[in-house]
C-alpha cells in the first residue's frame, strides 16, 4: 500500500455525452435539410407567444414543428397546438434545462425529412441551459421590454452563447419606459455582433424582418449542406 497519491491524466469534457448526442443531432438536421432553432429566456418573457406566432406564420409556406420543454405542465403544448403544427412537450421533471438526449428521445418517432423548421423551446431559465448544446443551428435568447435593460449584464453567459437576441413585447415598451438603445448596447457588450430583433408577438410589429431572417437562414443552411 502506497500512501503517496499518483496523478493520472484524464482530460475529459464532463458534458462529453451531451456533446456527442448534440453533434449527431446536428448532422441529422443537416442531412434532412431542417433548420433547428432553440429559444431560451426567463420565465414569462413571452417565449410561448412568440413561438405560437412564429409557427402560425411559417406554416403557410413551410413544414414546421416544435418541441417544448417545461418542468411540470403540458400547458404550453396545448397552447401551441392551436397553431395546428406538430408540437411535443418534453416534461423535464425537476431538471431545469433541456439536454441533447431529451431532444433526441422526443424526435424518435418524428421524421425530420418531413420538416423545414424545428423549433425547440427550452425551460424558462437563463442560467442552466447555457451549458447544454442541443445541436441547434441557431440559439435565440429572448428579452422582454418589461424585464429591464440590464438583463444581459446579469446573465452574460447565456447571452454570449446565443446567436440571435429577440426583444419581445415591444407593444409595451412605452408603458415601461423601455430604453431600447441601452438594451441593445448591453446585449452587444456581452455578445458583440449578435443579430437583434425587436418585435411584438401580439401586434406583429417587427415580425417580418425576423421571419425573413429565418427563411434566409434556411436557404443558406441547405446551400451549405450541399456544398
Amino acid at each position: 500500500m502506497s500512501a503517496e497519491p499518483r496523478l493520472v491524466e484524464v482530460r475529459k469534457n464532463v458534458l462529453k455525452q451531451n456533446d456527442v448526442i448534440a453533434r449527431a443531432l446536428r448532422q441529422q438536421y443537416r442531412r434532412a435539410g431542417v433548420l433547428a432553432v432553440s429559444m431560451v429566456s426567463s420565465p414569462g418573457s413571452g417565449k410561448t407567444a412568440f413561438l405560437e406566432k412564429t409557427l402560425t406564420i411559417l406554416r403557410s409556406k413551410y413544414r414546421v414543428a416544435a418541441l417544448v420543454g417545461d418542468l411540470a405542465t403540458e400547458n404550453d403544448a396545448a397552447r401551441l397546438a392551436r397553431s395546428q403544427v406538430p408540437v411535443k412537450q418534453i416534461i423535464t421533471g425537476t431538471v431545469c434545462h433541456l439536454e441533447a438526449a431529451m431532444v433526441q428521445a422526443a424526435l424518435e418517432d418524428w421524421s425530420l425529412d418531413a420538416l423545414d423548421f424545428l423549433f425547440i423551446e427550452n425551460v424558462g431559465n437563463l442560467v442552466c441551459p447555457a451549458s447544454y448544446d442541443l445541436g441547434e443551428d441557431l440559439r435565440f435568447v429572448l428579452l422582454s421590454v418589461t424585464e429591464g435593460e440590464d438583463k444581459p449584464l446579469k446573465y452574460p453567459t447565456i447571452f454570449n452563447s446565443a446567436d440571435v437576441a429577440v426583444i419581445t413585447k415591444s407593444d409595451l415598451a412605452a408603458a415601461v419606459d423601455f430604453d431600447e438603445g441601452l438594451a441593445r448596447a448591453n446585449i452587444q457588450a456581452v455578445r458583440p455582433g449578435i443579430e437583434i430583433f425587436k418585435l411584438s408577438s401580439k401586434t406583429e410589429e417587427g415580425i417580418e424582418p425576423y421571419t425573413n431572417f429565418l427563411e434566409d437562414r434556411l436557404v443558406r443552411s441547405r446551400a451549405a449542406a450541399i456544398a
Partner: protein
Amino acid sequence: MHELSIAMSIVEMAQEEAERHSHAHVQAVHLKLGRLSGVVKEALLSSYEMACQSTLLEGSQLVIEEIPVEVYCPECRVARLVRSIQWFCCPECGAYTPDVLRGKELEVVALELTQ
C-alpha cells in the same frame, strides 16, 4: 441549479477511470472550470460533496482551476483576457470581439489515486 447533475457526471467519470486503474482509490479530482461554462464554482463544490456520498469517492476532494475568459482581439491581433464577462472587448484597445478562445471549459483533467 444544474450543478448537482454535473457533479454526478464528474463522480461517474472518476469512478470509471479509477476502475480502469485496478480500482484505485480516488483522493482528488482536478477540474478545469471556465468562467463562461455556466457552472458556479461554489455550487459545484457543495454539489460534489453530495454526489460523492455513499460512493467510492466519499471524502475525496474536488480541486477546481478556474479558467478566465480569453478572447481574440481583431485589432491587436492577439489573445487577451477580458476584464469582465459583462464586457467582451479588448482590455487594451477596447475593440469588441465575439471570438472566445478560452473560458468555456468543464473538463476533468486528472485524478489523484492511491492503491
